[in-house]
């Protein structure tokens, strides 16, 4: 849905602007129908007496879809603490966001669900400074409410009679799944390998699948539509979330202030409450 930039032909300005236009439209409307992407602008908070010295202005944050609830809350709190600032978010799959950023999308901060996607931006020289790891996430088994198939352990997922849906190895949650399969020696005869956590959760909460492997935070945010089954082996695949300001950031000072907030005590507390671990 997004178009690659036509870097090789800088003279064709119209093409470039068309591509930018389409990318911008994609950012606003959500890149794909099925990714849980959306743009949220937290409302400007009321002026606070304890206003710190964070610079005023707007910062645009591109963040992994799994951060949506947490970051939206953090943005609101940040604005309340720093009157005159606006934090705008675009949530999508980390790789979608990388495609958009390399395509010239106007982002100031990138928060990735894995180090791999952040690495792509680093090697493309689009990151300013060094990315900071601000959270971790581990997998958990999600089952339909009440766990009708009675899944208790990770090894249970090796049973073919239990219909398990996992992420495809190409996406981060699938890579984590593969790592745990390797370390435990359990092979999951998955009935489907989805391309996003949302799709895995959809199959589980609708009862089509008996079990799915998603992140702890996903189970938590799914509320009572699924029942979580934690398993100890999940520690063999810990997913790390890095955050970084981008070299094209228009407001570098504000970007650093927001990153500082996320890695600071308030941000960490909110992340912990959502189920994220400490890096």
């Amino acid at each position, binding site marked *: 849905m997004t*178009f*690659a930039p*036509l870097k090789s032909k800088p003279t064709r300005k119209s*093409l470039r602007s*068309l*591509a930018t236009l389409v990318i911008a439209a994609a950012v606003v409307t959500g890149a*794909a*129908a*099925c990714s849980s992407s959306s743009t949220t602008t937290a409302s400007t908070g009321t002026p606070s007496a304890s206003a710190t010295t964070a610079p005023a202005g707007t910062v645009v944050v591109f963040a992994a879809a799994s951060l949506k609830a947490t970051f939206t809350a953090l943005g609101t709190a940040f604005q309340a603490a720093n009157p005159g600032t606006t934090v705008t978010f675009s949530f999508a*799959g980390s*790789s979608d966001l990388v*495609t958009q950023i390399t395509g010239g999308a106007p982002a100031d901060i990138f928060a990735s669900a894995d180090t791999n996607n952040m690495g792509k931006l680093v090697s493309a020289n689009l990151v300013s400074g060094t990315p900071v790891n601000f959270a971790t996430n581990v997998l958990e088994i999600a089952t339909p409410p009440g766990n009708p198939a009675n899944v208790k352990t990770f090894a249970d997922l090796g049973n073919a009679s239990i*219909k398990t*849906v996992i992420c*495809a190895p*190409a*996406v981060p949650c699938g890579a984590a799944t593969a790592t745990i399969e390797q370390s435990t020696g359990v092979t999951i005869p*998955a*009935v*489907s*390998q*989805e*391309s996003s956590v949302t*799709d895995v959760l*959809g*199959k589980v909460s*609708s*009862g*089509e*699948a008996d079990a799915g492997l998603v992140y702890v935070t996903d189970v938590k945010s799914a509320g009572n539509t699924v029942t979580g089954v934690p398993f100890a082996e999940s520690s063999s695949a810990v997913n790390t979330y890095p955050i970084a300001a981008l070299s094209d950031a228009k407001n570098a000072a504000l970007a650093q202030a927001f990153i500082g907030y996320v890695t600071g005590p308030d941000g960490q507390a909110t992340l912990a409450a959502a189920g994220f671990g400490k890096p």
Partner: protein
Amino acid sequence: MKTSQNYWGVPKWVLAIALVGALFVVLPLLAMVVRVNWGQFIPLITSQSSIDALLLSLRTSTIATLLCIILGVPMALVLARTTFPGQRILRSLVLLPLVLPPVVGGIALLYTFGRQGLLKAPMNFLGIQIAFSTTAVILAQTFVALPFLVLSLEGALRTVGTRYEAIGATLGAGPTTVLRRITLPLVLPALVSGAVLSFARALGEFGATLTFAGSLQGVTRTLPLEIYLQRETDPDAAVALSLVLVAVAIIVVGLANRVGSNSRLGPNVLS
């Protein structure tokens, strides 16, 4: 002017806007072609997962198209040739998948044919499990593609009218004979183009499949799903496969146009 030519009578500004419109459609395709990593093109599209996805797509789309014909021809006939209370509402409902976001179609199918769906009891009784199977892919494709066939065929049936059928009946042909020997041959071009549209729609089906059928190599992961997945790790492969999908679509539509123009009725049809 070097050669004699008919005066078109199309305003220049219309031509200009039409050109912009054409560019709007063609440029993205061109942009994709430009981005293809031609050095790696063949290895990229001949990986096992790509071939599995392509073959699965062709297989399921063909079966879905056949299902569309089997179900759609009678539906179009009933809509075009009979009148009954609630017909307009029924037509709107039948055509709904045209305007429905595919993902909504997928959710609807899930709640119909899924393990916890509306038909849970009869399907359990018959021991049919559709979720995560190739059957689910075909159902999703048929669901979104069926309106294309019904719509184009119904229009053609109305255009052709009932006069030939009435003559056929007075010559002693029963309704089935009339359908087989008169009605269907007369609307064959529309049937072919409707089937091609359905096939193209089935081939491109993504949202309903993703929601309803899942994604497993060789079983439910059709070409669009493969492209979507490859994009995560290997954008080059995604672009290459996209081009394959475009090529297949162009070939199919081109073939259909040929068939359509060859079997187009002569000028004296209605005289």
